[in-house]
């Protein structure tokens, strides 16, 4: 097996550059004559703008332009693209609120973009912004998701008096009602999935550069779907896509957040057009809490019906999910796009899901790692533990009684998933051994002697990865036999360069030193959908596999022609003829392919190939998490003490990259359960979590050593047999940790604890349970 073959722990090729300070993130970009912009944001959650006076700001030295909502409205630009395609309960189409780059007469969340100052320096722009006088008339605001549908809730949009954006149902209501009618036991729980933010360490930013002579726009911005983004941006700029270039550069983390056409992207392009210079906007961290799209945020009521043996008969899920104040294409996917995960890895025959998406005076929502998957896994895995507790059955045993067996594959669940493969009981058993589930009670007793409450939690999860779609790839050999590899995927840290170079080097026998990887530039990459939804290894990897296959086919033909044989085989890039005992390397073929005498008549010169892979069905990564916590009974402080994961992401391209994805995903899931939360003041609608001092981020000391083992069941749904890995860690972590917390406190009578389980909340939960018992 070659050193770059599938499954080898190849150290990342992107690392030496990034480790030496050679990353090229958006704030590192300086263009000649570049001006700087500052967004003046709404300080109100909801208000009318009565007047804006920018005259004093305009006069400040260095100021090049001050743009307001009026300038946006008067420009050639259309508003930003919004979500489509969903309906309200009565079947009428959903309301699609206008989404201008700068608002004119009404602000709808704290952070809404009101004015944009362009100046020679950012300090001048900020100073000028302070001189803009705006007369606001504050209006009542609604920031609570659950309360948004109350009859007297303030209206975010006049057009939707009930604040309901759309309603979505899934599953079989009649069958579920029937299942509940014959239930022996019904477990019920309300679960609040808090609002969190991606908080990538690199904040958002953009440089807009309008070339008047060519009438062409270039946007430099960390964006995880460069080509799709260009198509969306086209509708705002009202020019053909060919007049737009998107350059993503290095992306300092995204997790779904840096994916839509945001206000500031449109604004810097408009500003560049007006001032005739490139214009840069960089979000400060404080700004990012006010202006980034947030994730999760729903309130779910779940019920599980069981027979007397603990067999799941049916499940009902009713969710109110926030969409924020404005929508974007794809923003409807968070509440409804991944409901299939609710069925879990279980045989539950009937499920009824009802989702109401509501407007609130809050930041717009975007996918955030998992995008509905962790939320759904949390719901099903929590209610199983609630049911287990109520029925006095061990939660692992209860899961075991309901698992889909491998022999039932392919298995159609009561929701949308048609699972092609998976060995769920094996995953669970492996994880239980790793986490020594059998020996837990002894650890619990030992902890108790130290004044600690120890709990263990288990989650099984499954999700949809690589939803049907396309990805493009291209391989170009140059004259001397070195290679440029291009992909429509866009890495935000996942390590695509390494995974893709592994495929190219292993298939074509070239040295990684000879391979240049290029992504995220729409003038270079011909086709692609970008990275998101755990799609790139499966779809992008398959696209590259198609391209290497085309290269090999052509190389074989050239080699046969040159060696005058007809038995050329290609093994790891070496083209060999047994009959003649001759061979050529891919590099030699590439060089030869540019000399007409070496080519069969009619063959195009050069060794290049492009490919578009089409995924017709998704794949289903799955796994089990087992974790243990210790709670200090005096202070409510939680310590995560053990963490074990078994994942099935099919074939593994590179175990280093895979584990990195799992660790990172677990960390984000743990962050949400223990500490992170975007919180708004219910009265004023102010965002109370506006910096890293108020928004708690998980740090190194919050984690134990995490052990990850793979139990791969390769999928046939793509050319590599891989399943998505980007979101799995986060999906499994939230329910496993929440279950461990409740387990630690269940002897006190605690049935559930909301996230984030801060020391104060944990302490109050224990005290309330004790008081209720007394």
């Amino acid at each position, binding site marked *: 097996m070659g050193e770059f073959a599938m499954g080898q722990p190849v150290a990342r090729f992107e690392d030496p550059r990034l480790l030496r300070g050679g990353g090229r993130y958006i704030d590192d970009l*300086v263009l000649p004559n570049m001006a700087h912009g500052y967004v003046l944001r709404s300080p109100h959650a909801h208000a009318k703008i009565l007047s804006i006076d920018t005259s004093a700001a305009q006069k400040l030295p260095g100021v090049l332009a001050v743009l307001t909502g009026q300038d946006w409205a008067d420009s050639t630009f259309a508003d930003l693209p919004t979500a489509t395609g969903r309906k309200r309960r009565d079947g009428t189409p959903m309301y699609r609120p206008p989404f201008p780059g700068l608002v004119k007469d009404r602000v709808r969340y704290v952070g809404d973009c009101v004015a944009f100052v362009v100046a020679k320096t950012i300090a001048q722009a900020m100073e000028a912004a302070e001189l803009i006088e705006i007369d606001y008339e504050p209006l009542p605001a609604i920031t609570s998701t659950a309360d948004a549908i109350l009859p007297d809730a303030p209206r975010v949009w006049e057009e939707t008096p009930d604040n309901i954006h759309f309603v979505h149902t899934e599953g079989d209501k009649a069958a579920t009602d029937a299942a509940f009618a014959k239930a022996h036991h019904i477990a019920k729980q309300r679960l609040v999935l808090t609002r969190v933010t991606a908080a990538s360490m690199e904040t958002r930013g953009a440089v807009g550069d309008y070339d008047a002579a060519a009438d062409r726009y270039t946007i430099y911005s960390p964006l995880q779907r460069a080509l799709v983004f260009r198509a969306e941006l086209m509708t705002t700029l009202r020019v053909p896509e060919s007049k737009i270039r998107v350059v993503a550069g290095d992306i300092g983390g995204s997790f779904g957040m840096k994916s839509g056409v945001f206000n500031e992207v449109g604004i810097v392009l408009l500003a560049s057009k007006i001032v005739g210079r490139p214009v840069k906007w960089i979000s400060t*961290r404080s700004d990012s809490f006010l202006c980034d799209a947030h994730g999760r945020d729903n309130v779910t009521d779940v019920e599980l019906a069981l027979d007397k043996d603990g067999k799941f008969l049916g499940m009902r899920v009713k969710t109110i999910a926030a969409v924020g104040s404005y929508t974007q294409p794809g923003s409807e996917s968070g509440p409804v796009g991944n409901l299939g995960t609710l069925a879990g890895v279980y045989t539950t025959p009937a499920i009824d899901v009802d989702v109401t998406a509501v407007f609130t005076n809050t930041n717009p929502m975007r996918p955030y790692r998992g995008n509905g998957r962790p939320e759904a896994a949390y719901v099903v895995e929590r209610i199983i533990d609630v049911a287990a507790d109520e029925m006095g059955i061990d939660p692992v045993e209860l899961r075991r009684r309901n698992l889909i067996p491998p022999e039932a594959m392919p298995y159609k669940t009561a929701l949308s998933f048609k699972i092609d493969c998976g060995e769920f009981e094996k995953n669970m058993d492996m994880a239980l051994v790793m986490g020594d589930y059998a020996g837990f009670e002894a650890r619990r007793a030992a902890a108790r002697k130290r004044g600690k409450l120890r709990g263990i939690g288990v989650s099984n999860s499954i999700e949809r990865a690589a939803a049907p779609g396309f990805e493009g790839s291209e391989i170009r050999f140059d004259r001397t036999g070195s290679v440029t590899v291009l992909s429509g995927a866009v890495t935000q840290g996942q390590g695509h360069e390494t995974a893709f170079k592994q495929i190219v080097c292993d298939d074509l026998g070239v040295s990684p030193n000879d391979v240049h990887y290029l992504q995220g530039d729409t003038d270079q990459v011909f086709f692609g959908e970008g990275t998101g939804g755990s799609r790139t290894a499966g779809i992008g990897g398959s696209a590259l596999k198609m391209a290497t296959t085309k290269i090999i086919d052509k190389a074989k033909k050239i080699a046969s022609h040159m060696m005058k044989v007809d038995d050329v085989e290609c093994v790891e890039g070496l083209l060999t003829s047994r009959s003649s005992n001759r061979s050529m390397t891919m590099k030699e073929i590439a060089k030869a392919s540019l000399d007409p005498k070496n080519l069969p008549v009619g063959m195009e010169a050069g060794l290049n190939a492009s490919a578009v892979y089409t995924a017709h069905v998704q794949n289903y990564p799955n796994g089990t998490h087992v974790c243990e916590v210790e709670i200090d009974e005096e202070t409510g402080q939680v310590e995560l003490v053990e963490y074990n994961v078994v994942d099935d992401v099919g074939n593994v391209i590179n175990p280093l990259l895979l584990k990195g994805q799992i660790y990172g995903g677990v960390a984000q899931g743990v962050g949400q359960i223990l500490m992170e939360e975007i919180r708004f003041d219910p009265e004023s609608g102010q965002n109370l979590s506006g910096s890293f001092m108020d928004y708690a981020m998980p740090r190194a*000391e919050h984690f134990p050593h995490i052990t990850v083992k793979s139990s791969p069941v390769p999928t046939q749904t793509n050319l590599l047999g891989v399943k998505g890995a980007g979101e799995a860690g986060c999906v499994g972590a939230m329910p496993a940790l929440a279950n461990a917390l409740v387990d630690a406190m269940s002897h006190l009578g605690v049935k559930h604890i909301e996230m984030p389980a801060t020391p104060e909340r944990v302490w109050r939960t224990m005290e309330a349970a004790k008081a209720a018992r007394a």
Partner: protein
Amino acid sequence: MINVTMTVNGREMTGEVEARTLLVQFLRDHLRLTGTHVGCDTTQCGCCIVHVDGKAMKSCTMLAVQAQGKAITTIEGLAAKDGTLHPMQQAFRDNHALQCGYCTPGMVMMGIDIARRLPDADEATIRHQLEGNICRCTGYQGIVEAIKSASAVLNGKQEGGSHA
């Protein structure tokens, strides 16, 4: 405007700055050493850590004028001229301690500082020492392992990179 002079990665650098110019701004905007990053505005994240006279400092929390006459090392100053990585950089690569790479320069600079001050630091100590550094991508596991293994190399407890 104020004249500042400091040694940056072994070379004497001068520049004109405003009194309010931060060290990180001087490094990034004046010297174009963009490997030092900014991840927050409240001294929480550590993306901006450089060495000032050999000690890890958050360059977002220090004025350029405070670095007057001092020796600064940034992430760009660690590798050998021929590109050989510093043992801490090498350990970050070997242990997959970076994903997006944004927190990485600060983590590497902090890692070297930890290895210098606490040569015997165990995993728990390293985790605690990283309380001023946030990484959103890696879950910290590779970072902790990298610092531990590079520390052994740097403190002469183990064979390793050419720099040790």
